[in-house]
Structures are given as structure tokens and as C-alpha cells.
């Protein structure tokens, strides 16, 4: 069916799009190691995050589950007894913030037992809180999620944790409620998110494309749209300034999640994904790009 468009046009676009997606999937999987994981960059050892994001990209692009099996087998070896997930098998206590990303993978692939343990760990994890500081216009008494247990909460680990909880039907949990308050509190008043504080001494900090896109994805359907509109408008209005693969991917993911037009960004992203030099290809960001170009939602229900 062509929905009233020129006969054959849509079929042609779909076919071209499918073959492009298949080529991107093959390029992504060319980074797989024999044990099943993927590294951040060619020549490195397998690491948790690029493997998680690659697994999610395979899910998003509709690749057969068989193709993800080696990745999932390796991912499962990263889970510790307490449900946390580490950066690599050699450094078991490190990179525990990655548990949230792992939970998203476990959710989409139906790995219920792994998911339950990961969520239990996430629900037990709180960032350190302190009294409010007049230099910072933010509520330091709210707990988000930290990069490293025993430290402060930051935008990115909090947003990943919220996505994991929301997808798993845990949005009503007190930790999720407080996490959303934390994330909304860290918004830059004129739009977007920095990596942590929205301002310092009344001076707004710069919004980052990656944390802004991620935070918007985490809050979709879970916060008053009026509170998010300045951030969406910011991404939309300044989209021509976004140049990196990571930034473009998050901009597309966030705009599409809210039903906004990301057509120009998608074109630029597709072109960029065909071009990065092999030595500069960040596998995690490439996988994010693939997710952005796919139609299936990965980070929102």
C-alpha cells in the first residue's frame, strides 16, 4: 500500500532503508569479539556499554534474535551476585552505573531473572545527598543515581536508571518518583541539561546534546510536557549546531520520542554513519545512531 503517494515511491524508500539498515548492522557486528562482546573502539577489549547498546540496536533494527545471542551470553557474564553489572569481567566492582543499561537489555530480550536482579540493585542504589548550597540553584536533598556508589547523583546515570524502571513497569516506585524530581530539578531553565548542575552562581551552564536527549527520553510520558518544552524547542531550534554522531543520535531519539520532526537530523546522521574513519568509530555511539534511525522505540514504552 502506498497511502496515496506516487506508486512505488514508498516501496523504494523502504527497500533502500532496509538495505542501509542491514549494512549498518553488519558494520556494527564486525566489531564483535569471539567471546561475544564488543569494544568501544576497534582493537580494544569487549566492554559492557558498547555491547549493551549494540544489543539494543539489533533489537531496534529488527535483526533476528539469533544474532544477538552471543552478545547476550557475554552480557550475562557481567552480572554480579548482588544484581549489579560491571564494566568488564576483569573489573567486577567497576562501572556499576551500567546496571541500568543492562536492565534495559534484559527487559527487551525477556531475560526476566537477570532483569529482576538488576532492578533490585538499582532500587537499592541512592546517590549521596547534602544540604542545599546557595551557589547552586538545585535541590541537593533529592537522590538520583550516581556513577559510582557513595557519590553524588548525575543526569546520565539517573536518566538510564529511570528508563530501566519505566520500561519495567516500575514508574510508580518511590525511587523512580524521586529520580524524576531529581532530573526535572537539574533542567537548565532556558532548556536542556548539562551533565549535572543547571547553573552556578546564577550563570546557566551549557546544555549538552547527549544528556539533553537522554533526559528527554527518560522523562517521556512521565512529566508535564510544559516543563519539557523548552528543552525540546532547544534541540529543534539548534539542531544545525549538532555535529557529532552521539549528539545527532540523541537529538533524533528525543525529538522522535515526542513526535517532532527529525527528518533533517536523520539525513545528517545517516550520512555521518557512513563516513567515520574506522579508528574513530565509537561502537556505542554508532549503535545509538542505528537505534535513532530505526523505527522501534527502545527507551520509551
Amino acid at each position, binding site marked *: 500500500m502506498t497511502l496515496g503517494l506516487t506508486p512505488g515511491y514508498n516501496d523504494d524508500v523502504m527497500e533502500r532503508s532496509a538495505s542501509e539498515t542491514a549494512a549498518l548492522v553488519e558494520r556494527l557486528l564486525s566489531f564483535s569479539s569471539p567471546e561475544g562482546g564488543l569494544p568501544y*573502539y576497534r582493537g580494544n577489549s569487549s566492554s559492557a*556499554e558498547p555491547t549493551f547498546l549494540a544489543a539494543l540496536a539489533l533489537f531496534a533494527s529488527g535483526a533476528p534474535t539469533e544474532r544477538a545471542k552471543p552478545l547476550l551470553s557475554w552480557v550475562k557474564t557481567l552480572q554480579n551476585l548482588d544484581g549489579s553489572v560491571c564494566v568488564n569481567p576483569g*573489573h*567486577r566492582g567497576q562501572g556499576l552505573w551500567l546496571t541500568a543499561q543492562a536492565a534495559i537489555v534484559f527487559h527487551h530480550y525477556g531475560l526476566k531473572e537477570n532483569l529482576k536482579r538488576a532492578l533490585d540493585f538499582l532500587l537499592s542504589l541512592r546517590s549521596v545527598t547534602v544540604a542545599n548550597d546557595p551557589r547552586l540553584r538545585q535541590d541537593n536533598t533529592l537522590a538520583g543515581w550516581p556513577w*559510582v556508589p557513595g*557519590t553524588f547523583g*548525575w543526569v546520565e546515570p539517573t536518566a538510564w536508571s529511570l528508563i530501566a524502571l519505566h520500561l519495567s513497569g516500575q514508574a510508580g516506585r518511590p525511587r523512580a518518583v524521586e529520580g524524576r524530581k531529581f532530573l526535572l530539578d537539574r533542567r537548565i531553565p532556558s532548556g536542556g541539561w548539562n551533565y549535572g548542575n543547571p547553573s552556578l552562581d546564577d550563570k546557566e551552564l551549557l546544555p549538552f546534546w547527549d544528556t539533553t536527549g537522554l533526559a528527554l527520553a527518560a522523562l517521556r510520558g512521565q512529566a508535564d510536557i510544559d516543563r519539557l518544552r523548552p528543552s525540546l524547542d532547544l534541540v529543534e531550534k539548534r539542531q544545525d549546531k549538532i555535529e557529532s554522531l*552521539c549528539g545527532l543520535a540523541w537529538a533524533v531519539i528525543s525529538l522522535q520520542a515526542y513526535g517532532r520532526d527529525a527528518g533533517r537530523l536523520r539525513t545528517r546522521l545517516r550520512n555521518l554513519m557512513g563516513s567515520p574513519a574506522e579508528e*574513530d568509530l565509537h561502537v556505542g555511539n554508532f549503535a545509538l545512531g542505528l537505534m535513532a534511525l530505526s523505527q522501534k522505540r527502545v527507551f520509551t514504552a
Partner: protein
Amino acid sequence: MKRRQFLKDATLLTNAVALSGITQNVPPEPCPVTLLPMPDYSRDLSREIAAVMSGDGLQLKGKKVLLKPNFVEAHAERPINTHIAVIASAAHACLRLGAAEVIVGEASGHRRDPWFSALNPSLRGILDKKVKCVDLNHGDAVSVPNAGRRSGLPVFYVAKPVAGADILISMPKMKTHHWMAVTLCLKNLFGVLPGVYYGWPKNLLHFRGIDNSILDLARTVKVHYNIIDGVVGMEGDGPIMGKAKPVGALVLSPFPLAADATAARLMGFDPQRIPYLFQAGRFLPGLKQQDVVIRGEKPARFAAQFDCPEEFRGMRGGPFF
């Protein structure tokens, strides 16, 4: 950590000069510090830098060299980062001196996206094709026993390219710092630790005390050479929100504390009043003015008075030159 992984890391470290642990590194003579005029970023100073490094006895022939600039944050209007022209001059100086491999690597403290850091096209575009750029935030790391005792961290997870380098060159920007008074070569070592392990920012190091973490890293990670970008520094609310402060010089030395102490004096601070520099003086040479011999231009030509937050005004001193 499993024993097998520990042994793997230990084998790597045996080959790495960069992580030999610092004890009493006291030179027989005063520490040389060279001030190289660089009024703006339009000149290629690779020849001059090579001459100074060679004169300081730095042997690079056949070596793997890692340049560690500071790309903590990206802001078009603020001089936050080590300028790419300085990085290019230093990288090309290393090639002139026969380095087998030259790598520019950074684990940016605020920016996760490597496009804003070591993989920015503007840096790649100015460098000789033989120079590699690596994102130290994302990639392999090795665990290295903490040679200090102040932070309480048993080990540091150091980016593998740093651990595997024969020569490590610290290349910070000359800046004030709203918590530490100044940020220079020693503080720049935070950027050898991957964000995947420590986060953005490396909040764990803050929790353990920034000064403690700096001092432990200074004992653990050996820096072979230091080049401070003081062409345009940052004063006021550094290291991110401050203002440009032109000084017009590069500060070069094999000794990180000597470079830092000299840069601090050029900025109008007394390094002996800056707690972490004072503490570093207990195990690194070059804190006191009489421990340093300044070569190149006369320092009075570059001496400045960097504006700083109120709480650090008591750390000012001089005139030193």
C-alpha cells in the same frame, strides 16, 4: 579483580615506564624550567619545543609518546582547553625527535562525547597523519596500585594507552580553579582515568578529596615532561567559567611540580601557599624558587596577576621575578 586479570595488568605495567611509582625524585641540580614566548596561536613552535625538550635530556627516539592535553569542557568563547596549536607543535616536536609513535589522549572530565575532546575534527585536521588521537574515557584500563595513601583508594584504573606509553607528557592549560586555586600539570592527571570507571565528572576523586587524589596520582603516574599552555590562560572562576588572561608563554619542564610552581608564580600565586602544591613538594622537586632554574625568556616579561575567587587571594605572593 581476578588473579589472572591482575597478572595481565602487572605484565603490562612491567613494560610501562609511565607507571613506575614516584618516590624521592630529587634531581642533583635545580630543576630546569623553560619559558618559550608564544604571543598567539598562529605560530608553529615544533622546532623550538623540540630543541628545549632535547636540551632537557628527553630521549624520544623509537619511543611511544602520549600527549595528555586538557579538554575538560568545550565552550566556544572560553579558553578552557589546551589549544590545538600547542598540541600540534608538541606532537610534531616529538616526531622531530624520532618518536616511533605519538598519541594525543584525553579522558575529558565533563564531556562524554569524544567529538568535544580528543576526537574533534579540528584537532585531527591540524595534526600530522602519523599522530593518533585516542579517547581515554572509553576503552581498556589497567589497575595500578595507588602509590599514595591520602585518598584511600587502593588502586587507580588508568587508561591502557597511558599505561602502555614509554613517555607521558602532561599538557595543561594555565588556569585558576575554584576549588584548588590553580589547575596545572599535576591536576591534569585526572584525565588519565577513564570516565567509564570514574564518571563525568570524576566525582569519586572529589569525594576522596581533590587534593588527596592529585597527590596520590602524582605519586602513582610518572610524568616525563610537561608543557603548560600559558599563551592565553584563564583567570577568575576557572577552570570553566573564568575569563581569558593572555600571558604569551609556554612553560616547559621535565619536572611537573617545578612547572606548576613556576606557572603559579607567573600567575601571581605563591605555590608554597597552595596546599596541594606545598604537599607535593614533600616528594617532588621544584616547589621552591631556589630549586628551579629558569631558561629562555626572562619571567618578568610574562608575570601576571590572575584574578581569582576571594578565598584564594591569601595564596597570592610576589613579586617573584
